[in-house]
């Protein structure tokens, strides 16, 4: 009797242990169209790569959200960043963006691709190039950079590359006297100097000041050695096929930012005081600069 009970228990135990668990099969399925159709008009809003994409998103997404709040159901704006100047310019050349904030050079270039200038960033005095070097690098004059490697974001970065390079030229360094290294972004150019990979870096005030706020320790290592003269700030362009009422709504939101506290907070993150109305004539000084620059360094296109 005992053996039989034990055998029955053992059989139940073994059967219980051998019973397979409940099978669960799953593979995602796909469809050509979304389950809920999205009919809302979407505009792409882009800013030339002043920072890395994540930083760009942090800075400019609040602006986009403010525009979307104003636009309501009529349309929405989506921020799209670019990893470097080349990709930004490529997308701008392909008319991918509906609204864009290119640098002054790209602003003028976009006009050839069907964009029109409707505004610009204010505070032109801040739109200047700066040359940063390590504090332990005893640079007495621009000529000390002769033969040195200097990091720049991109060849078409007006404030960070073109204006510093013309500044160096004007102070005695011919185009071939330096080893220009284009490293993709403002932050990258500065980090190259910090790590000693280059002797100096060309950039402009907003990214430098943003970096100082994020990493105060860099100020112990780096210092702004030279500043260029200011020029017209970054432009605000719109693709020609965007309806006027939508253009007007976006423009009105941007021009009114400095009138409200939260708008000013957005502008402060962008290192500017306001957006201003502008047109193609506003950028004539830039055209003058470009002629001089191309005379020295050759045509950009």
């Amino acid at each position: 009797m005992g053996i039989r009970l034990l055998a029955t228990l053992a059989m139940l135990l073994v059967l219980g242990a051998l019973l397979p668990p409940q099978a669960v099969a799953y593979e995602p399925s796909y469809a050509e169209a979304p389950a809920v159709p999205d009919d809302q008009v979407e505009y792409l809003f882009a800013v030339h790569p002043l920072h890395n994409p994540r930083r760009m998103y942090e800075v400019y997404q609040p602006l986009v959200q403010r525009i979307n709040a104003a636009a309501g159901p009529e349309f929405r704006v989506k921020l799209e960043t670019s990893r470097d100047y080349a990709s930004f310019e490529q997308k701008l050349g392909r008319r991918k963006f509906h609204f864009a904030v290119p640098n002054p050079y790209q602003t003028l270039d976009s006009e050839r691709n069907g964009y029109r200038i409707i505004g610009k960033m204010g505070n032109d005095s801040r739109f200047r190039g700066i040359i940063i070097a390590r504090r332990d690098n005893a640079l007495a004059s621009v000529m000390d950079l002769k033969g040195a490697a200097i990091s720049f974001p991109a060849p078409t970065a007006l404030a960070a590359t073109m204006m510093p390079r013309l500044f160096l030229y004007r102070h005695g360094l011919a185009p071939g006297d330096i080893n220009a290294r284009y490293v993709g972004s403002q932050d990258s150019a500065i980090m190259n100097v910090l790590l000693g990979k280059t002797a100096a870096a060309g950039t402009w005030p907003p990214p430098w000041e943003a970096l100082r706020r994020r990493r105060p320790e860099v100020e112990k290592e780096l210092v702004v050695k030279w500043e260029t003269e200011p020029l017209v700030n970054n432009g605000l362009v719109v693709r020609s096929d965007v309806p006027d009422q939508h253009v007007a709504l976006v423009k009105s939101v941007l021009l009114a930012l400095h009138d409200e506290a939260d708008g000013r907070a957005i502008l402060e993150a962008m290192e500017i005081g306001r957006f201003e109305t502008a047109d193609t004539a506003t950028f004539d000084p830039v055209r003058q600069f470009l002629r001089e620059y191309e005379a020295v360094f050759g045509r950009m296109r």
Partner: protein
Amino acid sequence: MSVRSSRRLIGEAGIRRNLVLGVAIVHLMLMTVFVFDLVERQKAFLLEELDRRTLHHAHVLAVSSSPWVLSDDLVGMEEVVEGSARGSGVRHAMIVDPGGRILAHTDRARIGLYLADPTSSSAITGDRTARVYQRSDAAIHAIAPIAAADSLIGWAILAVDKSATNAYLAYATRTGILYTLAAIAIGTVFALLLSRSILRQLRLLLRGVDNLQRDVLDQPVKVVSRDEVGRVAEAFNRALASLAEGRRRLTSEIVERKRAEDALRTLSRRQVSVIEDERKRIARDLHDELGQALSGMQFCLTTMRSTMQGLDNPLDGACAKMASEVERMGVSIHRIANDLRPATLDHLGLLPAIQAFIADQKPLIGDSLAISVDSAGFNRRLPAEVEMVAYRIVQEGLSNVIKHASASSVGILLTVNHPQLIVTIRDDGVGIPSRTSGGQAVERGIGLLGMEERAASIGGKVEVKPRRGGGTTLRAELPYALETPHAETAGSHS
């Protein structure tokens, strides 16, 4: 119960089977629980580890793809997705926008499509946290939000294959089953060896019991173990030795007693024989000596009277009276001699002697007691000693009936039931009194004792018991095929 059946029941069918089955089942249960628990623990650990790895992988994919998503760089996203799919058993990886549109996928044909299944739709509309949103048999599905500035810009979705984990678990399970089988086999072998050692001693014990049943007491059980069973075997051997010793003593006592009984019987037989011989001699002497003397006296007296006839001698009357007395004395002597040793018994046999005895009693009892003799089939002579004992028993028994039973009838039955003569005396009298009821009972008891002694002298026995309905039955069983030389001699007489 046969030896084989008891061995099968107690040995092979009982202890061994129970021990082997019990050990095997206990091993099976314990190892099953152990292996099941181990495999489940490993499974839980591995799946948790796989969950964690998949989640980490999805999170890394989300973080690494965020710049490309922000830039809407499909090529960049594709590179990131393909990079994440290298190794680690990734079944598929994808980056989708918040609306479920696939921006990058390890299967490029999926790019541009929309997630359509409820599980995926639920996952991308759920909390903005990295999580495992589905565990299927084949894969772990994890999702991680791609976020920037607190805004959701997409999802990284990853499915990691479980086949390696499943294969390892299957391997662990197989190994566990092998261990279980090995444990059962080892346990069974151990149980077999254990049962063998136990059963060996038990078999030897059973053999000892069989020997005991066959009355073999001089073969002790071999003690091969020092455990409890071995101690039982030792105790059995002690009991066996004690039994053998007791039996030896008993046998010796029986032999002695038998020898004493034989001697007693021989003595009794001799005593009876001596008595009978003496009676026979006295009877002969009475017959030969006194009888002859009395016959001589009778002849003289007759002669004297014949001489004195006609002389009117006054001594004639005295002679006549003396002759009458001598004749009476001759009759008495004849009767006494016949009582001492009936000549009929020696010359004609038991039945005529009994009938003569009855005839002699008739004048004494008259018609108050009817005596019958049934001797159908009894027509042979038996050894003289047996006939004498039988005659004396009938004589004593019948005398008792006449004197004490107050019976109206008595029947004597002689039967030969080889090798015994059965003498039965049945009466319808008052029955036998208890042995303590007075002098009459004592007398009858003495008479019965004498009958028993006579019967015992030839190896027989006498039994007296009351009859149902009244009366007494005396039954004597007297062996006539005696083995003693005396009996053979007696037999040869007849």
